[in-house]
């Protein structure tokens, strides 16, 4: 491991150790925060007991659905709008304000439109995530050099073939940035929706444990979801590095 990496690990370990010491000595009361080591132990216990397996499956499935639809929809909408500059110009203020709009306020509307099942939660995740993909796709397509498009014309590629074999591969790193945000926003959207109005899923169980002062369960579930998200993000980060390294050769 590089020197930077070692120091980074030390910084993180130091932070966790400080927290552990503060909890063990009673500076932080166990009603507020339980010691990190206890959190890890209870996470393992709770996962092994299988009590929350159904909730975990529901949440992860909904997040995955939101991610997939947002990725496909985002690239499609981004490519389409890139081809329609006039429409895009009119919509520009919407792109800029989109993330300032509190999307959770539309939850009741989504319930009426989609019913009471999992769809409203997926829709919130999708709505939060899709715009990141749209914006980054357009941003990437803007940067495709004219010479590539000329080459496509020389090869007599149709618009679809040009998009598939020239534009999208060139825009890939930008689209990938959108995908990373898309993953993060999908988690936020789905879990946030479960928090405020839902009857199952990890977000709901965390809120339920909070309301019952069940700190062991609450911290275990929070730790679990943060660990999953961090793992997914780190894999994406590593994959992106590999893709970029290959392009530079």
């Amino acid at each position, binding site marked *: 491991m590089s020197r*930077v990496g070692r*120091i*980074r690990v030390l*910084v*993180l370990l130091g932070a966790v150790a400080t927290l552990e010491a503060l909890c063990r000595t009673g500076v932080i009361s166990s*009603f*507020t*925060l339980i010691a990190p080591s206890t959190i890890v132990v209870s996470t393992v216990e709770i996962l092994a007991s299988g009590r929350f397996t159904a909730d975990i499956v529901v949440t992860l499935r909904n997040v995955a659905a939101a991610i997939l639809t947002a990725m496909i929809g985002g690239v499609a909408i981004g490519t389409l709008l890139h081809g329609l500059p006039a429409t895009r*110009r*009119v*919509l*520009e*203020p*919407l792109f*800029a*304000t989109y*993330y*300032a*709009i*509190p*999307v*959770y*306020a*539309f*939850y*009741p*509307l989504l319930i*009426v*439109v989609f019913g009471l099942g999992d769809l409203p939660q997926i829709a919130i995740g999708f709505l939060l995530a899709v715009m990141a993909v749209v914006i980054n796709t357009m941003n990437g397509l803007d940067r495709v050099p004219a010479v590539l498009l000329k080459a496509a014309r020389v090869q007599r590629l149709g618009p679809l073939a040009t998009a598939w074999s020239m534009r999208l591969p060139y825009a890939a790193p930008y689209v990938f940035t959108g995908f*990373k*945000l898309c*993953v*993060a926003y999908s*988690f*936020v959207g789905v*879990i*946030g929706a479960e*928090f*405020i*109005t839902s009857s199952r899923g990890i*977000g709901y169980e*965390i*809120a339920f*444990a*909070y309301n019952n002062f069940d*700190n062991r369960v*609450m*911290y275990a579930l*929070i730790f679990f*979801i*943060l660990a999953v*998200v*961090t793992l997914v*993000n*780190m894999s994406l*980060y590593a994959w992106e590095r590999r893709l970029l390294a290959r392009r530079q050769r």
Partner: protein
Amino acid sequence: MKWRDPLLLIAVVVGLWQLLYLYAGDSALSSPVTTARTLAIMLQDPRFLVHVRETLLAFLQGFLIAVLIGLAIGFALGAHAFSGEVGEPILVALYSIPKVTLYPIILLIFGIGMPAKVAFGAIQGIVPIALFAMNAIRNLNPVYARTARVLRLSPVAWTKELLLPAALPEVITGIRVGFSLTLIGTLLGEMFGAQRGLGYLLMQAMGLHHMPRLMALTLLLVLFAATVNALLLALDRRLHERG
């Protein structure tokens, strides 16, 4: 001509809203006219303005804290290259975790009330502001630093004459992103655990299924967010063009 596009956009959005209303009916949403009228009535009610002030106060404090801490972290990590290298992946990881999951912990620390709301907003805003500020300092043209050395500028003069003006456009972009996230964070916090504020009213309207009220609140929030965002965006563009 400059105003034609935004007006067109607003007309299209209101038109789609009306169509959706005609399709989905009163139980799903209220019409644009009803919503605007409800909002106008609500804004004259002093009891409602108490909630508006509560949310605004929580948001402004959270935003101020996010800007101050975010800029401090960003400038420190940007100025010291090694710390920046150590810290950046940690910041990026913090940026992408769903911070809603931390809300119960904040409530345990602060209890229900103003400090918790401020914290809900602040934790969402700090990291993006720090990331943008760090990159702003890091990507400064090295010629500036050399020029400053040749001119023997004092650290204060260097900060005032070079660092701030050169980094400002990116810093403003970060603050704009931080603004949106802090607002969403504050509202989400109020929706999850509060007894006052617009987020609380949203949850109440949702529970009572009072569509005109719910839509009026949403409209108010969207108008506020869009206005501030447009102002920050205009500032952002002007600074980037000048630079």
